């Protein structure tokens, strides 16, 4: 029987992803390490500032894990939230776990905390790159209803490996922001099929922005995380230049109208218009050859 990853809270995801009862939480709710900013704005704080961090075992191997709670402030990164992520990754440099798992569900910077939030996100990026440089794989798992947007979208693409379910989303600007800035003809944020064609897991997988596509199932995410252990993807100058070339080509060759279906056709996907109706296994099969 499958368990929906999207339906689970951050804590439930951690408990179900790791080996049974192997999770040890750092800075737990009872420690009350909370946001110093929200109360004066009349906004409730969370005991864990919306992120669970700690260590546990995955298939017997020691791993570090962080899970953002999308329901609290849309998973937005505030000062304390960001510091917990940074602290986790700095400790990884010392303890050298087999992997750092980041269960990302976030709208990006928590705007209520303004500059503190911005700084926090950039510090997370720096810390993640340090972990990666140390040869410890950082795996980002994206499958929550809120998706992974804003500064956290950038963080996700700094990781060794990105795993997404098909109802997960990954992007920088959110759909409403694009519509507000560029008009509804450019992007109708209420056309949810369009939103998922543009930012959803299937599109990211087909266009190469996400490494692994899975069903909305905790077990599938767990298997993908296990698979990522031992597969650090070193950042090299060659690798960066290849990425730059790929992005330049993508921009240059973008199909007329810039709809995802046109891009998939360009990538050689058969029956591209059927992709939105396919499940993860069927989409994987499209590129398996």
């Amino acid at each position: 029987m499958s368990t929906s990853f999207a339906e689970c809270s951050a804590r439930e995801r951690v408990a179900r992803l790791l080996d049974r009862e192997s999770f040890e939480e750092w800075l737990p709710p009872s420690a009350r390490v909370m946001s110093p900013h929200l109360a004066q704005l009349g906004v409730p704080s969370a005991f864990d500032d919306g992120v669970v961090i700690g260590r546990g075992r995955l298939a017997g191997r020691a791993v570090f894990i962080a899970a953002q709670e999308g329901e609290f402030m849309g998973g937005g990164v505030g000062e304390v939230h960001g510091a917990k992520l940074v602290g986790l990754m700095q400790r990884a440099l010392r303890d050298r776990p087999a992997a750092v798992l980041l269960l990302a569900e976030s709208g990006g910077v928590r705007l209520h905390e303004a500059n503190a939030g911005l700084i926090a996100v950039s510090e997370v990026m720096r810390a993640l790159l340090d972990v990666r440089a140390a040869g410890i794989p950082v795996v980002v798992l994206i499958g929550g209803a809120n998706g992974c947007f804003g500064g956290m979208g950038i963080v996700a693409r700094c990781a060794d490996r990105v795993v997404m379910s098909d109802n997960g989303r990954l992007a920088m600007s959110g759909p409403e922001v694009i519509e507000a800035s560029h008009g509804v003809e450019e992007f109708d944020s209420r056309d949810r099929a369009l939103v998922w064609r543009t930012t959803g897991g299937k599109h990211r997988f087909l266009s190469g922005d996400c490494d692994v596509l899975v069903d909305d199932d905790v077990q599938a995410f767990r298997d993908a995380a296990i698979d990522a252990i031992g597969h650090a993807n070193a950042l090299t100058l060659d690798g960066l230049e290849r990425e730059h070339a790929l992005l330049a080509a993508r921009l240059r060759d973008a199909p007329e109208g810039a709809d995802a279906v046109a891009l998939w056709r360009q990538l050689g996907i058969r029956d591209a218009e059927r992709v939105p109706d396919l499940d993860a296994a069927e989409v994987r099969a499209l590129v398996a050859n």
Partner: protein
Amino acid sequence: MTGMESLVYEFAGTRCVAAFAPVLVGVVGSGNLEVLVEPAAAAISRYSVETSARGFGAIWEAVLRDFHERHHFNGLSVSINDMGATPAVVSLRLDQAAAGLKEATP
């Protein structure tokens, strides 16, 4: 006037609870709340509420009193962060926390 409302209630109970690890249920989201239950070295149960929905003190008192009378625990410290949950959701979370508690108690 913005700002959170802080409410504290204390009730005397009869059932003492042995030491247990803190129990957390719920998430602070719109219409939702989180409840943290911890042991307290006192002969009462203490409920403290931080809420963004101001002006419902009488209802909080009634809900918490009813919860307390369902279980009658002593030595509890119950801390709540609330974002406008209805009494139905509050009662549900409290009962979920109490269930987690029983399992923790030897």
